[in-house]
């Protein structure tokens, strides 16, 4: 029981913002209201509006 609790896998959600012009991508924590293709953020390279290209979960090993 204890070992099961120690190795509990907690999913964390991320959004990936992508610049449609230069292809620059940045991964950040998912925020409520995010959805794929939502305009979100500005590209640090060319100041173009970025869009969310992916939202996914990744499991973090919780020790």
């Amino acid at each position, binding site marked *: 029981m204890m070992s099961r609790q120690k190795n509990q896998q907690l999913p964390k959600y991320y959004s990936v913002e992508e610049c449609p012009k230069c292809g620059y991508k940045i991964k950040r924590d998912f925020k409520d209201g995010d959805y*794929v*293709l939502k305009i979100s953020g500005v590209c640090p390279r060319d100041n173009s509006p970025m869009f969310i290209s992916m939202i996914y979960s990744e499991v973090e090993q919780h020790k």
Partner: protein
Amino acid sequence: MSAGSFSPLFGFVPNSPTEYALYMVIIWVPYVVLIIYGQRLQGYAIMADVGRYLSRLKVDAEKSRGNLLSYLQKKGVAGDGQRTMEGMIESVTIFPENMDPVGIVKKMELIIRTQEDHVKLRVREIMKSANDLERTAAINMLEISSALDMIYRVVRHYYLITKKSPDGIYLAAQLQMILPSLVKQADAYLNAMDALEKLLPLGDAAGPLTVSRWMKDSQKYDYDDETVYSEMDYKGRRVAVIKAKGPGASVGKVDDALANLLNGPYSGSSAVIMIDAALKLEGERSGDVAMGMGAAIGGIGTEKFKIEDVSTKLGIPVYAVIIKESLLEAISVMTRDIAEAADQARKTILSLIETQVPEGGKAIIIGVGNTLGVAQ
């Protein structure tokens, strides 16, 4: 001890008659008890295990009900509205008789559409001040609550029958075998409720995610309130892209939209390409992309039937591009492997268009699946 002779104490030599009797009891009584009552004891152990799984299913069903009511509360629905939704959790759908299967698809479609329309209408009445996204989330939460409630009640039914039956061990053993995977599915459904509230894409959104990129900057047309399509030009080919309308949870009516396009502006198309999440076999990697022939679409089969029907009548080949994932992944928040597979799937689709559709020709791509969290 001579070879071949039998010792009831397996070679142990007692020091007194009392010790002899004691060791005889210790060694032989459990043996006799296990011979006579072994199966019954095993049955008790199995039933205790099934009982534990049943408790977990009950907890999942109650939590899902609680999540639904708490979501309604947040959206300003209380009292009668909440009670009506609770009543809808136990609503039943009776499928048509299949002794004479001719025409059964239309009958099933009518029943499903009637049920969907009824639920939409009731939810619209209950959630008057909510927007479409919130109402869709509530409908999907209701579906999950209904599914979990049904799973719990069916398993409880067999559990109680097993307890009453003299030969219950055989039924109990079957229950014990399927329950671990059933409980995992129930847990995944419960977790999906959180995804619905936050608009997180599920693994099943692999198809809509793949095609959404092509629809982003193009003119979109509503086929109906749940389905959308757009057009693009790819190396001299005219291509229509269909998906359910996001980012709310919906699978759309892609079958009807396809039939409409094939019988209208896309008549004479050279190919229909369907992209969907498909169940992987154990040992296969999640997110692998494969290409094949045939209609890649799940559900109860009515959409698949209609797509096969229209493509066969018009003689248009149907190609399938699938992104492999497990059933649990399909109903859980999308994983990175699956999200990243969309790029590979797009390349496969474009390569199919180049090889199967001549320049100047037409094709239709369908992103199949629940588009929760994926716009267009």
